[in-house]
């Protein structure tokens, strides 16, 4: 109960900061928009092909966009060395981490809400499979991206080339999740196969890595 209240306090603070600065959201939104537009030049978004590749483009756009936001997550705490205050505070470190994950989850979801209609328009999409399953795939996929992303952003916080390092360590670990997201999205859009296995795999991935991140976060925060 207290834990939940602490998470909420952190989350409220993060949302307030984002609301006042809009650092992450603006950049992320424009970036993923650009990726979608650029890909439509690279791949002809005609009706037949677009279904096959749209899933991939959607998730790659979101992956790149999330990295821009994830890099912001902790730099905010570095300014004025607030991170030291966080480390001195008696509240559990994992609560801080969880709130950051939730905040990033919200940001990326907001991007999806803006991006989804554009996507449908630009790529003439209409799901042949069970479209409602996207409501499951999107949050699960987003969680997979942001949980490891938030963790590795914290991990690369005190390194040289911080912004460079994050994708270098995040992408390899995220490959299975990305595969599952793209495959399930494609399966839903084309209706040619059953996305069930991929959705289950994504859920498993989420459970494993959320647990792992929560367990190891304090170690990373106090690595020095």
């Amino acid at each position, binding site marked *: 109960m207290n834990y939940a209240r602490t998470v909420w306090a952190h989350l409220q603070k993060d949302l307030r900061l984002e609301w006042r600065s809009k650092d992450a959201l603006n950049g992320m939104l424009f970036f993923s928009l650009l990726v979608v537009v650029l890909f439509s030049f690279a791949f002809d978004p005609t009706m037949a092909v677009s279904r096959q590749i749209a899933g991939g483009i959607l998730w790659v756009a979101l992956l790149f966009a999330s990295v821009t936001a994830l890099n912001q997550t902790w730099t905010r705490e570095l300014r004025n060395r607030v991170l030291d205050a966080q480390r001195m505070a008696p509240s559990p470190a994992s609560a801080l981490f969880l709130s950051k994950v939730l905040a990033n989850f919200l940001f990326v979801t907001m991007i999806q809400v803006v991006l989804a209609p554009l996507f449908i328009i630009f790529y003439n999409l209409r799901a042949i499979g069970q479209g409602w399953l996207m409501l499951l795939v999107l949050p699960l996929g987003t969680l997979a991206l942001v949980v490891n992303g938030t963790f590795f952003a914290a991990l690369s916080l005190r*390194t040289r080339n911080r912004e460079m390092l994050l994708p270098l360590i995040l992408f390899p670990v995220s490959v299975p999740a990305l595969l599952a997201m793209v495959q399930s999205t494609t399966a839903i859009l084309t209706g040619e196969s059953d996305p069930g296995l991929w959705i289950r795999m994504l859920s498993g991935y989420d459970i494993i890595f959320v647990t792992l991140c929560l367990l190891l976060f304090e170690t990373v925060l106090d690595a020095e």
Partner: protein
Amino acid sequence: MKRTLQVGLPIALAILAVGFYQAIFVAPTEATMGEVQRIFYYHVPSAIMALLFPYVNFAASAAYLLIRRSNPLRAQAADALALAAAEVTLVFASIGLATGMLWGRAAWGIWWTWDARLTSFLMLWLLYVSYLLLRRFTAGGQTQTLAAVLSVFAAIDVPIVYMSIRWWRTQHPSPVFFGGPDTGIDPHMVPAFVLNVAGWFAWGVLLVTLRYQLQRKRQRADQDATLRALESTLQSVR
């Protein structure tokens, strides 16, 4: 280190030499693929080693995380072992990938295919590249902790690699061993295969040991430098 070389190198080389003889001259030629199948004796052992040493890396990293506060000196040894295992993993994974591509070109007519096992194996390779990159990019006392944490993540991906064989439809031959009643290889191929696995295992252990000893030496040199810095500045004040 000299001792390790004197003892380990002859053993590893001897097994590898016999294994080479068995693989090239004794083992029967495979029916459909022909001579090119003999790369199997190098490809599969390398791949096995690349899947084996991550466990060493994981175990050492986990040990490091557990004892880094209570026993910092032994934790240093664990970290050295983790680093050695990671580098050797990368070497074997690279060999596995390269020989796999050669074989794939001959057997399937393509260098590479994005099937699950190949992709997972490439992922393993990428993971350990990123592990070593992280070690490069971090400075000071936190390198070891952060690397150990990443290693835990990487090691958890290794089972996913293995499970993926059964989960995903794949172009790669289904597991040759323990895969069911119709699997297994010609008994005449077994000696060559076993010897090569043993040989490359010995070679891998030798490499890890040497790298471990080198890293320990470096750690001791660093420690000496630290103590010297402490002492020399002390004198400059007095």
